[in-house]
């Protein structure tokens, strides 16, 4: 029973993180209708930046967020202007190709710089555990989860209670009408995109001590994000978070009870495929 609760808690924590990662993807999709296949790879960049901070500068990953997040935000603005802005009105498949290419470049660059070795990132919390009753958490895990939830709440607040959030909702619903109201749709798209990358710039270093860092993690994360996106309902942010939790739980509990344990990796994909077979049109539409 204890291991079950342990698995449950771990699944919830991972799930919350997945939920946040996907919300960033969803936000970009809602205002640009772009599906960024490089989403995961972009987060991996942030993870490697954290790694660099630890190895070469001795800075704790949590501290390096202060630098990495703004850096990623700026990178997002540059990337938007150089690549995404130009393919905004192109055919969906072209966007997939371009973002696949981008992810590929990122992965190859990371491979080139850091090699394919699995890396771990140490933080001051590594190895520390927190005990609540019968359950033992890794501190790094807990911090990652709590911050993810906080960021998600912050996002909801921004969306529903600020002027900018109102603009985002308008652009997401009807960009033409939004422009007729004087909103610069391009600018909103750019800020949301950069903001998503900035979020990844926070989540990356946050989970670097939790995940194993290696260059191919990117596409895997992207796929999980897409799975969570589709399961959660594309325009429904809360649904996204819940779906993230479900996937996280599936992974964690699967890892506990399946044999061989590596097979647990199949569970999210299995759920995804089953879901799509039972709910034919998927929630995505295109």
């Amino acid at each position, binding site marked *: 029973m204890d291991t079950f609760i342990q698995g449950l808690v771990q699944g919830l924590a991972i799930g919350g993180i997945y939920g946040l990662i996907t919300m960033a993807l969803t936000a970009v999709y809602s205002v640009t209708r772009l599906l960024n296949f490089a989403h995961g790879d972009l987060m991996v960049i942030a993870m490697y930046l954290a790694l660099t901070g630890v190895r070469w500068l001795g800075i704790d990953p949590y501290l390096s967020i202060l630098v990495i997040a703004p850096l990623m935000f700026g990178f997002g603005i540059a990337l938007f202007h150089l690549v995404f802005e130009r393919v905004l009105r*192109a055919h969906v498949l072209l966007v997939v190709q371009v973002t*696949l290419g981008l992810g590929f470049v990122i992965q190859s660059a990371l491979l080139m710089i850091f090699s394919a070795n699995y890396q771990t990132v140490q933080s001051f919390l590594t190895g520390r555990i927190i005990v609540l009753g019968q359950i033992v958490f890794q501190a790094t895990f807990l911090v990652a989860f709590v911050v993810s939830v906080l960021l998600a709440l912050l996002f909801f607040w921004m969306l529903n209670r600020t002027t900018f959030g109102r603009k985002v909702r308008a652009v997401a619903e009807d960009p033409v009408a939004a422009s007729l109201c004087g909103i610069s749709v391009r600018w909103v798209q750019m800020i949301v995109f950069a903001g998503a990358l900035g979020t990844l710039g926070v989540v990356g270093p946050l989970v670097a001590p939790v995940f194993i860092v290696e260059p191919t993690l990117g596409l895997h994360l992207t*796929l999980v994000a897409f799975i969570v996106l589709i399961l959660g309902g594309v325009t429904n942010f809360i649904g996204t978070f819940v779906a993230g939790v479900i996937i996280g739980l599936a992974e964690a509990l699967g890892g506990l009870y399946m044999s061989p344990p590596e*097979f647990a990796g199949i569970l999210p*994909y299995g759920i995804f495929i089953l879901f799509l077979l039972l709910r034919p049109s*998927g929630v995505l539409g295109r």
Partner: protein
Amino acid sequence: MKKYIPIMVFFVCGAIFSMVADNYWLDIMVFALWYAYLCVTWNIIGGVGGQFTFAHPVYVAIGGYTSSLLFNHLGVSPWLGMFLGMALAALLAMLLGWINYRRRLPHLTFALITLAITFVAIIVLRSSHFLGGSEGIFLQRGNDPLTFRFFNKQVYFWIILGATCLVLVFVTWFSRSMTGFKLIALRDNEDAAAMLGIDQLKMAMMFSAISAALGAFGGTFYAQYLFVIDPTVASSHLAVEIILFTAIGGMGTVWGPVLGPLAMVVLIRYLNAEFVNISGLGQVVYGVIIIVVLVVLKDGVVSWGGRKLAQQTSKLKIREQRQ
């Protein structure tokens, strides 16, 4: 008959090349042609058919693993074993095609399912002892034509060249005469769908099967050339490469999936050789090139070129009419 001339020219060029090239270059071009083969066979269903899929490497793996296992355990020649591999791959493809059409899955959803399948495939391959685990399956080196094993690289070159040309012949044949197939790509068009009805489903499944079966042969070839096959051949990495190479060449064109990989593989090998110290630079460079081409042209090179040519000819026609 005229439309097959470029293919004949291509074949002849390849033949000449094989006779003058040294082993180093033969090796590079075997790989380049292998990629071209994979891209052309993928394009049948991915670029032209509108079923954007990441699953091609899985078919490659099925082909390679099946023929290799049959050879190692039962002594069956890969020339025969490959047909079983092709059949299995075709079955999987038909299943996916059926799901795609019966469920009317959106393009993206189907693409994601196929991506998920590559991940599942790798996990399965890695975890299975029978399938060789992470190491894969090794084949005994030898020089025995009957069992698809040769010391001479030239032979492999001829085989892959021939295979690629045959597939090109097939693609040229159906892309000109079977315009109905193109309508599959317009699957979202309700009127066309109503008109074609069941035929659409049959055609989709048939072409999926063909594409997969041909891809499976690519797997057998790979195993026989390297004398080993391992899980990386089923990876999403290869799937992305196939998609990107085809994209830069031009999706849905006949020659796009040939020129794209030929150019890129040669480029990578060259870069990796020049910059041996920075391993992996080649990948980064060609990735950037692909992005730039796609963003600027909004299309692959061959398709873009085709459009420009069409515009020029129509401009000339208008000018003629004005006079």
